[in-house]
């Protein structure tokens, strides 16, 4: 694998998620990208029971790009890479760590290939409800983010307004060899921020007096681009 950068794509007002995705797909196809299947990154969150002190949150993430692996991320930052039997192990720990089915998130959609780049346009959902769009761009021939970031940025500019900076997590690892864990960490951060903004929106809707909590902006709000100008 090469270097992967994951970005949240904001949905302009008045547009539905599906409309934005259709537009992105059209842009990519116009650029000459070919569909190479589908992908899915899913995340299940487990919370520690009362007898575990300090309490912990464990995110179990699977990525269809690494179908035999399972990534277990603790809120301490430790990421365990293991095979998918770990899911079964989590069932035996049901008394210690329990998951809330309603918090299961996934980003799924179409995978495109364009030369050395792989682009994945994913629609993010929590249970049945749509929550946003995540775009994953991978540049295959390089493993050091610093060496190819400018190229990736320019490439992204072709179908979305390019982000100014890499994802915050990647910024600290620009000169390190990129690993599949780095992709998962980016997804985890995005999932957490989408989850938080959803929770904030829900709490604002139920208690209109707490307006300050709704003012959270998405990390990549700067990459918004008006759809009509792109056509």
């Amino acid at each position, binding site marked *: 694998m090469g270097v992967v950068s994951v970005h949240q794509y904001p949905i302009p007002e008045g547009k539905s998620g599906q409309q934005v995705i259709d537009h992105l797909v059209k842009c990519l196809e116009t650029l000459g990208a070919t569909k190479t299947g589908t992908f899915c990154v899913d995340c299940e969150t487990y919370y520690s029971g009362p007898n575990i002190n300090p309490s912990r949150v464990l995110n179990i993430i699977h990525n269809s790009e690494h179908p035999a692996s399972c990534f277990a991320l603790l809120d301490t930052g430790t990421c365990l890479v293991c095979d998918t039997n770990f899911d079964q192990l989590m069932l035996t720990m049901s008394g*210690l760590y329990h998951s809330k089915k309603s918090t299961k998130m996934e980003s799924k959609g179409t995978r495109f290939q364009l030369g050395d780049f792989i682009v994945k346009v994913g629609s993010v959902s929590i249970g049945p409800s749509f929550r946003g769009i995540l775009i994953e761009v991978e540049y295959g021939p390089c493993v050091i983010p610093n060496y190819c970031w400018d190229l990736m940025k320019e490439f992204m500019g072709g179908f979305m307004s390019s982000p100014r900076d890499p994802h915050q997590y990647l910024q600290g690892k620009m000169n390190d060899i990129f690993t599949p864990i780095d992709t998962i960490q980016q997804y985890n951060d995005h999932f957490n921020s989408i989850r938080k903004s959803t929770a904030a929106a829900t709490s604002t809707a139920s208690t209109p007096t707490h307006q300050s909590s709704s003012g959270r902006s998405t990390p990549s709000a700067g990459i918004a681009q008006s759809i009509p100008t792109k056509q």
Partner: protein
Amino acid sequence: MNLESTRRSAQQEYILQGSIVNDSCEILLHRLRGLCDNGDAAPETFKDHEYVYTIRQPNGQPLTLRVRQSLEKKDYPWHLRYLGQPEIGDKNRATLVRSCIDVACSSNICTFLSEMGFKLDYEYISKGFIFKKGRMKVTVSKIFRLLPPGNVNTDEHVSQSYLVEVSVVAPTGQDALAEEIRSFAEQLKPLVQLEKIDPRRLQ
């Protein structure tokens, strides 16, 4: 490809255990070389460091997980193992049966388990030989204490004998395997008497 069904498929371990004194171990190894696959090659050796982690569940029962690292092949993945309660069964059941989950994992597993709330209970070194016969795995190994703590090059063995185990890990319900293991164990008599050993009765 149905990943979900692969993830959920439960595995069980069918196992018989026994021991042999040091002096007779060489004869057993010869016998195993004759009985098992790849008899023309020298027996495969292993030296593993096993860490045993436990955590108390809300119902008061401890949950134990075992972590193994190969000291001979440092680049191999670490191995995390859950073993369920052993079922002895009646006289008709030939082997001990216990549910078993094997997970290959990255080397930060010990940190990961500690952060999850598990406590390191004990650790030891297991060193010996491994044979295969079809789906069966036969190990002849010696257990060493880590003395002083952390010293993996210890020669502080626990006893004057070797632990002998014959096991198969298979999906649930393949009870015919138990018979296969029993008939194999018969061929090792009278050198070693392999039995269903309930660890709860040893405590």
